[in-house]
Each structure stands twice: as C-alpha cells, then as structure tokens.
C-alpha cells in the first residue's frame, strides 16, 4: 500500500477529484495548506508598506491506495492538475504499513 500526497493549485481541486473518481478512488482527505517551492511568493503593497508573501495557498490531498493502482492515481493527478506553469505542485508517494477501517476492524488492502 502507498500513501499518495499531492500538493496542487487550489482551483484545480475539483478537476483532480473527478479524475481520481474516474480511476476508482473512493476516498481522500483534503487540507488547505500554505507553502512555497520554486514559484516563490509575491509582493503586496498597502499604501507605502510593501510585504513579500512567501507562503502561497495550496491544497493538499492525501489518498491511501493499493500498490497496483499507484501509477493510475499519479497519472490522474498529473493529468488533471497540470497547467504547465510554475507552481503546479508535487506528488509524494510514501510506503504505507497498514490501514484500519474503524467500523469493521478490517486491515490492509480491504480497508483502503
């Protein structure tokens, strides 16, 4: 099993959700986050005061999946979240030791 963490542009969330639904993903956790990579921040000016804003708003999606669908999920996210411009985000794939469905006590792939 793998835990896939995707950091994407906020306005792409709906498209990504639909693309993931299309490859059979039935659940995900979404968080509004802030951060920066190569895109860096931007400058805001309020009358005479200028501020550099380093942390830009992004959306983080977390999905637990079985090993055999990892490639499909990555393709779905990149396909739907890509604009081709700097700041599109990143996907992290982490090994996942176990998953437990609380209601039924199921473990492993059947709980994903």
């Amino acid at each position, binding site marked *: 099993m793998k835990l896939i963490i995707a950091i994407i542009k906020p306005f792409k969330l709906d498209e990504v959700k639909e693309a993931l639904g299309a490859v059979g993903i039935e659940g995900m956790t979404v968080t509004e986050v802030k951060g920066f990579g190569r895109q860096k921040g931007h400058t*805001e*000016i*309020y*009358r*005479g*005061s200028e*501020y550099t*804003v380093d942390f830009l708003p992004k959306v983080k999606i977390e999905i637990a999946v079985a090993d055999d669908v990892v490639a499909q999920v990555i393709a779905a996210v990149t396909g739907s979240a890509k604009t081709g411009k700097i700041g599109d985000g990143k996907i992290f794939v982490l090994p996942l030791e176990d998953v437990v469905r609380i209601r039924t006590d199921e473990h492993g792939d059947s709980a994903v």
Partner: protein
Amino acid sequence: MNHSCLRKTLRQLTVAGALFALALGLSARAEVAKIVPPTADERLAALEAYVNNTDPGKSLALTPGPGHNAWMMTSAALVLFMTLPGLALFYGGLVRKKNVLSVLAQCLGITGLVTILWWACGYSLVFGTSYGSPFIGGTEFLFLSGVTSAPNTNYAYWVSQNVFAMFQMMFAIITPALIVGAIAERMKFNAILLFVTLWMMVVYFPLAHMVWGATGWMNGVWNAAAVIPAIDFAGGTVVHMSSGWSALVLCLILGPRIGFGREKMAPHSLVLCMVGTGMLYVGWYGFNAGSAVASDGIAANAFTTTTLAAAVAGFTWGMVEKVTRGHASVLGFCSGIVAGLVVITPAAGFVNAAGAVLIGVLAGVVPFLACTRLKAVFKYDDALDTFGVHAVGGTLGALLTGFLATADVNSNLVSAAYAEKNGLAALIKHGGLWVAQLKAIGVTLVLSVVGTIVLAYLVKALVGLRPAPEAEQQGLDITDHGEEGYIL
C-alpha cells in the same frame, strides 16, 4: 424625623409649590395679555425668513424651523454613523486580526467618553460666550443647562440648540477617534481614554471655540471681532489638522510597533475597510452639508462639492497607483476617497464645483505622496496613516480654501455684519485670504503639537502608554478587552 412629621412637611411643601406655580401662571398670563400680536406682515416676514434662513424677527423667535431641524438631526446621525461603525470598520480592517476589536473598542469608548465630556462642559466651553474670550467659550451651558429646543441665534436662526449641540458633539467624537489610527495596535486602552479626556480639554475645546465660537479668535465668518479672519467650513483645522498632527506626535512618542519594518503588518480585511469607507463617504454629507447648520443653498453647495471632491480624489489616487505600480488597489481607492473628503471639508461651503474638482485632484496626489514617500523617508510608524491623510489633507484643504473660496456660493464671506468688520470681506474681494488661512494653520499646528507633547508625557508618567511587550505581541483584543474578533 418620624413618618407623620415627614408627611406633614411634604404636604406643606406641596401646597406652597402649588401656590407658587399658580402665582407664576397668573403673572405669565398677565404678561401675555400685554404682548401685541404680530401683524400679518411680520408673520409673513418670519415665514420668508424661514425659507431664506435669516432672522425670523419676533413672530417666530425661538421657534425651530422644521425643515432645518430635520436636516440637522439627519446630519447629526450621519456624522455619528461616520464613527460608529464607519471609522471603526475603516480602521478595524486595516489592523492585524489580533487587534481588530481593540480599534472598535477604542471608537466605542471614545464615543461614550466624549459624549459625557460634551454634556458636562464641552459644549459650553466651545459654544458658550460668557467669558467673552476669543480662546474659550463660557460657563452658561455647563451640563447643557439652558440648551433647549429653542434656537441659539449665535449659531442658527432655525435649528434647535439641543440639535445643534448634538450635531457638534459628533464632530467632537470623531476627532479623537481619528487619532486612534496612528497609534493603533500599541497603546493601552486606559492610556487612550486618559489622553483623550485631557486632549479634549486642552486642544479640542479651545480650538473649536477659536474657529467656530461666536467670540472665536479665528472665526472669520461669524465673529466681527475675529483677529484672524480665517474660514473653516466643516473642520479642516478643528477636526483633521488637530487630530492628524496630534496623531503624528503621539505615534512618535509611543514609538513603533514591535516588529515594525520586519514583520508583515498587512491589513487583515480590506473588505471591512471598504465597507467602512462607504459609510464615511455617506456620513460625510452630514459632516459637510450639515455644517451649513441649515437646509439652505449653502448646504446644497457643500453637498455638491463634497460629492465631486471625494469621487475625483478616490479615482485619482487609484490611477496614480495604476500608473506608478501597475495596480489600482482597493486600499488606494478608499484612501483617496477619504483624502478627498478631508481636503474638501474646510472648503465645502465656500468653493464652487470647479474648485471642488481641483481639490479632488490634489487630494488624490498630495496625501498619496505623504503616505508613500514621506513615510518611507522618515520611517515613523503612523500605523493607519492618520498623519498622511488627515494632517496633510487637512492642512492642504485649509490652505486651498484660502485660494478657492468665493462669495459667489456663500455670501456670508462678504457679510456686512461680520466679514466686512473683521477684514474677511476685503481678503475675499482683493485676495490674500490664504495668509489668514496660513495663520490659522500655524495656530492649529502649534496648539496640537505642543498640547500633545505635554499630555502624552503626562499620561506616560501617570499610567504608562504601552502595553507589556507580551501583551502587544499577543494582540490587544485579548489582553485589553478579553475577547477575540474571529472565532472560526
């Protein structure tokens, strides 16, 4: 004294009171019988005087005119609306979210405090005349005694004096509330209340009397004996210069906020700021057009010039930003609108439409430079630009009034009763009013700066000015008021 004895005494007092009242009533009736009823001509003349906003003569003496009173009550409410919630939201949106309630609380606290001061002595010290002094009013209206619904003809033929007192009180409220902008996020609530109390007594009441009091030193329009025949229609010197220059001095004595120049101190809600700006904009019609103290042609002119100057200044500020920085910002439009309203304030009832548009353009440029360039050079922490907008704008407006005022829109500028006697009429006809305006600017500046220096150090010695550094970092909402602005 036992109960039956007390009752007996009360009964005796009641009987005595009734007899006294009867005697008064009889004598009043006897006097009424002696009064000759007004002739039809006199009654007609009084009605014409009502329409023309002139002296009613004896037929309607001491009777408020319904139309003028209606407009002045509306105006008073509009000016209160400028502070609560207009200015509170304009400023509240510009601070960081941990301090939003502190600004609202300061505006609320000042409103109550100044109302009490105004009732107790403020109105009397500004608009009384019993001292016969050019610098301070008198004692005849202490605790608003004698301030009834009958007009005080020193100030208005047709407006109830209690309405006039309430209208002027709203100016006394918003003026110290404006100072809050410069010292936002870093002055203790009790220090603010103490400072405002002292500042009203030492700076505002004397200054307002000098400019607007019937015996005022700089009241060119309404005091035949004015030494400096300057003019200030709605408070360029009294309200905006006094608050703006005092704000600068107080913010210098306080020192900058912790982290100023290093931390991000961006406005937490420009939405609130814009909502507040809209309320200020609308409320300012009461401020400026209401300052005619009548629903007359001068009010109509002030209404027009206020509209033009505010819109032109807001647009100009936004376009200056667009050209110099690439973006016209919401804060830029809002700042320009407020600046336009500030600069037209002393001029509103004295200039024509062309003058108002010129004022609007300059109001969009000069305060913009003060807020961006001047502040960047001197690095003072005027948190919300009270100095840049109100002091610079108020000073600019007072001076421009000296060049643009014209008797074409306001014949009071050349009135035989006042302006011809104190020299104002000559200045209007032959030029040179700007010199009188400069003198008024100088007096206002010195009184505000010196008064604030003395009072700020006095308050510092008595209760201290700044909160503890931890309190300032945590935010004044929690530490000074025990509340949070946003629980989301």
